[in-house]
């Protein structure tokens, strides 16, 4: 496995001149589980979006390197898997079609089909794979998001509110993949849940408070 590092330097984000995040710097390497915590409205989700490169920071930068070589901005998307309340699946497609779209667009190897089935089973929605996502319950949607994020075996897995909407079976499945991810790459998650925090090696707490 190649050595990974993920660095964030002096990230700041302003919305309409209001400071949401300021001076956020850290550096992670593989085998780390990094948790971001903070009160409601402290900026966790904003930070997660910036770290994944889907929102541009007002200042600062994110640097991702694989095996010593820096991977520039749009190229690091293939290394990232994201689960977030702000990220939805296509509701008019079935779970299977969603995963197959993702696999094709990401140009995954042939074996994605097996992996997809394995993930659907692990997350207990295999029996619903031919149902359109708009008929899913909130927990089933959350489970599908995990399948989608893990399909390409990302080196960096980013989770925003990992256990929301899930029942205990769902949480167990998530925990299992969190542990696996920590062994094979970098895990990063934003949470308010004390139990989730126990999975972290390092915890970053956003403290600017309610803006």
């Amino acid at each position, binding site marked *: 496995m190649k050595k990974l590092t993920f660095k964030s330097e002096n990230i700041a984000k302003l919305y309409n001149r209001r400071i949401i995040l300021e001076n956020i710097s850290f550096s992670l390497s593989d085998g780390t589980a990094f948790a971001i915590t903070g009160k409601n409205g402290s900026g966790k989700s904003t930070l997660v*979006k910036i770290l*994944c490169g*889907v*929102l*541009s920071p007002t200042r600062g930068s994110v640097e991702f390197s694989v095996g010593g070589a820096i991977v520039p901005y*749009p190229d690091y*998307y293939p290394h*990232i898997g*994201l689960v*977030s309340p*702000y*990220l*939805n*699946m*296509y*509701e*008019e*497609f079935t779970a299977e*079609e969603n995963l197959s*779209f*993702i696999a*094709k*667009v*990401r*140009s995954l190897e042939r074996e994605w089909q097996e992996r997809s089935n394995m993930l659907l089973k692990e997350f207990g929605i295999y029996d619903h794979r031919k149902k359109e996502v708009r008929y899913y319950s909130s927990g089933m949607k959350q489970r599908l998001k995990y399948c*989608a994020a893990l399909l390409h075996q990302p080196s960096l897995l980013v989770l925003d509110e990992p256990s929301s909407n899930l029942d205990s079976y769902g949480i167990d499945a998530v925990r299992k993949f969190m542990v696996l991810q920590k062994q094979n790459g970098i895990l990063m998650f934003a949470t308010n849940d004390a139990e989730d925090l126990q999975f972290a090696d390092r915890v970053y707490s956003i403290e600017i408070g309610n803006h």
Partner: protein
Amino acid sequence: MMIISTSYHIFVKEFVSEFRTRYALNALLMFVVTTLSIILFSIGQESPSIDVLSGTLWIVIFFSAMSGLSRTFVAEEERGTSLTLRLLVNASSVYIGKLVYNFALILVLSVIIAVSYVLFITEFTVKTFEIFWLTILLGSAGLASASTILAAIIAKANTKGTLFPVLAFPILLPLLLTCINATKLATEGAFLVEAVKEFQILISFTVVMIATSFLVFDFVWKD
């Protein structure tokens, strides 16, 4: 090439999604059918000039395109799938996939409009069919090229519906005027060579528009 394959998958996704929801198709057909019948009705007994008829043909195509195409990006934004897509593929593939899809949609639409126009409006006699169909083809390409990037822009704005034609019209006007001119030539029975200038304008408009959009699309797509 990688980008071609991903664009293709985006295109297929759009297509299947439309087929499932029939959202754009609904809006489009409603506008086309209603407008055409109003035109038929208001023409009534008299025979308006070819100029006015060519004008209305392109107005109908323009408005139908406006009501159908605006959803391409708005739908992603409203359903919260734009974040998913942004993380999955590079901006260029998204642009190309959507552009090709829009082109296909608008082409089908304007062919439907054109055929019913030729069939039902007897005053509208096309003499040079090569010019006419080439204009429909190139006109659709031009419309798709400009409206794809504009649809991406309005998807990020707070009001969407009415904004689209407002932004699109001044930009599409040279295109529409050229199309109307070429249509007139077709009804006057001009030779194909006489319309070469019009086709050149249409092609270069499309090319310039796509090239520019390609350069700026990333800014629009990324928040």
